[in-house]
């Protein structure tokens, strides 16, 4: 007999399915579902809801990507399609998250490339996709329309909307049947407000994934950790405006001082530990999707999540 945990939560995190197979009008080889939790992460035997997933992040302009990853990958990161195919095969993440970093460079003037890049990644991998577009009002409507079109039917998760920057993304999600990421700067009330805003313009709550914004380990991570715990417990207490699953990225982890200044011979191992020590905590705090950039982090993160999820003789 084990003694039970005590909390009597009443709420539930919404379930969200990303990706669409041929049967649903897409081309993915499988879909993934997150959310559904009725308790804290990993609590309960078996735990409630769906196991947290790992997204591997790639980009279409590697000059904006962290140096340790570029060094590790060599030429592989120059072609996003090839990069996605290879990572999917070798490291088996649950999703691929493509950043269209090219659109964030000054003087970007080739919107047609958005279509071809998204198409090439869709062809290269059967995994469900997260696509990150531009962050410039002058480009957004064109860039997001192209993402939406190129991925029509694929049930993409697209991002990232913020309080001052959400219309093009929401419009794309609604027009082409995609899902979207809503980010707020480490603040539960701002997260809630943004969701309400999105609902008011017609987006239904089951299309939103919350990004609480992640500070890197040692550079604000503790705030992100706590805001995730607060969002999760609010959802469990029944606050409907915060019941979306969360996504959390170690994006800044590989540019912090400790990683940047690491001895080259240790760079990979430091990168992996810096990502692992932020993303496994994020999963424990309540993130349903955790994202990494160094491919070697994936196996360790998966092992950690797996061990937290299952118990010998209990759940899957």
């Amino acid at each position, binding site marked *: 007999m084990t003694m039970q945990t*005590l909390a009597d939560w009443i709420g539930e995190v919404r379930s969200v399915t990303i990706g669409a197979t041929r049967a649903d009008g897409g081309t993915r080889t499988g879909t993934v579902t997150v959310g559904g939790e009725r308790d*804290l992460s990993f609590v309960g035997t078996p735990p409630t809801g769906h196991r947290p997933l790992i997204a591997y992040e790639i980009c279409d302009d590697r000059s904006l990507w962290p140096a340790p990853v570029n060094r590790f990958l060599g030429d592989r990161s120059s072609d996003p399609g090839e990069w996605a195919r290879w990572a999917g095969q070798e490291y088996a993440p649950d999703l691929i998250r493509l950043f269209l970093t090219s659109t964030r460079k000054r003087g970007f003037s080739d919107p047609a490339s958005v279509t071809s890049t998204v198409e090439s990644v869709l062809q290269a991998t059967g995994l469900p996709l997260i696509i990150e577009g531009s962050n410039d009002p002058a480009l957004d409507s064109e860039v997001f329309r192209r993402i939406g079109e190129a991925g029509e039917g694929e049930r993409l998760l697209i991002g990232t909307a913020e309080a001052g920057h959400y219309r093009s993304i929401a419009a794309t999600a609604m027009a082409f049947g995609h899902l979207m990421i809503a980010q707020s700067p480490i603040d539960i009330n701002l997260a809630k407000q943004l969701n309400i805003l999105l609902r008011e313009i017609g987006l239904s709550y089951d299309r939103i994934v919350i990004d609480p914004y992640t500070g890197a*380990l040692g550079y604000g991570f503790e705030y992100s950790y706590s805001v995730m715990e607060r969002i999760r417990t609010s959802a469990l207490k029944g606050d409907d405006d915060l019941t979306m699953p969360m996504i959390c990225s170690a994006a800044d982890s590989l540019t912090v001082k400790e990683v940047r200044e690491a001895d080259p011979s240790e760079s990979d191992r430091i990168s992996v530990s810096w990502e692992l*020590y932020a993303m496994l905590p994020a999963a424990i705090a309540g993130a349903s999707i955790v994202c990494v950039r160094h491919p070697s982090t994936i196996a360790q993160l998966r092992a*950690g999540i797996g061990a937290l999820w299952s118990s010998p003789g209990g*759940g899957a």
Partner: protein
Amino acid sequence: MALKALDIYKLLPKKNCKECGEPTCLTFAMKLASGKVKAEDCPHLDEKVRELLGASTRPPVQKVKIGVGERSFTVGGEIVLFRHEKAFFHEPGIMTVVSDKMDADTIQEIVADVRDHLMVRIGLDLRMNGIAVCSEGGSPSAFGKAVEAVEAVADLPEVLMAEDPAVQEAGLAVCGNFRPLIHAASHDQYREMCALAVKYGCPLAIRAPDLGSLARLSGLCAAGGASHLVLDLTSASLHEVLNSATAVRQHAISRTTPALGYPIFIDTRATGLPDAALICGVLKYGSVLVADAVPKESRKAFLVLRQNIYTDPQKPIQITPGIYRVGNPGPGAPIFLTVNFSLTYFTLQGYLEASGFDSLMLIVDTEGLSVLTAVAAGKLSETLVRDSLKQFGVPDLVSHKTLIIPGYAAPLSGRIEDETGWKVLVGPRDAADVAEFLEKEWT
């Protein structure tokens, strides 16, 4: 819930016999209510009342001190389930394993490494904590020798891991006066282990097959005089570690099961996933974490994660606003404006030192917010800069009137110039670039 002095008084025998060391039962009640004495100090309480008073007058998670001297550490004393509800107070100690099968040189190498490893971050020393000595062969003399080898190198807190009371005592004979944690009492041998804990005045870890029987065991040990307990929740599955730890903390904080109101012990080796187990232990209520020598790369991440989780969420770590010197700045030295968030200060200071330029730092009070956060929140303003220049007597320190501001504060540059009459130079966004910046811009 905590009881008031008068409620406690009603439950006392009211003999005023002074055997507790207090002049009257009423003073005893008052001291008990404020946690200054323990219910056990009154020999005339009947069992039920003692349990009730014991449970409601001590903190929901008992404080336990391990080791003596400078490197000793205290765990427990926690009052919340989530750090955002208040804070986590006593960070877990990480105890590196040595075994009595190792030769003395190997042991001493490991111990010296734990003693000397130091990471300085935002002005604080981050360290590994102590040594867990494991009995593997069941030989008292081998165990005693291993403990001697540890003691020869350092005064670090120790966990003595030997289930056989005879082996345990051989270790205690060497270091029993230095408050090692005795590991571990079980239902089979708790009497002997409690006797050792009492004899040497040491904290005691306890172990049982499930939480119900662990709670019973803690009651038995406390009744046996060992009241500084630590609960071993080690399991081969991280899932179980996290679930048991969560259950223990919930039962303790809510005072549903006061017998579980003790700090948690986790041996991370059992899971085969050392990093994941350390992470789980730091986040979910571990207080004593036993681990094989942690590789250098994970060590930093571990220490930083632990520091992150155990800082006060309501109060960023700050430094006192004012003028700080880097090197030996003369009146012509450059002066850098920045905020009083410790992380910002130490980051900038590190790069300024490395730049080789003598310089001054003007730290203004943004209530501990970083540059970008302070700008976004309106906490870094031109009037604050003006007042700080005056308050810290900056015009008397330098012979020029040029202020270098952070790149992220660029939107304020015009307003600062207008308000202060100083010339503003917008520095780089990333402090890593200050050396290059100074070489180009500061002649």
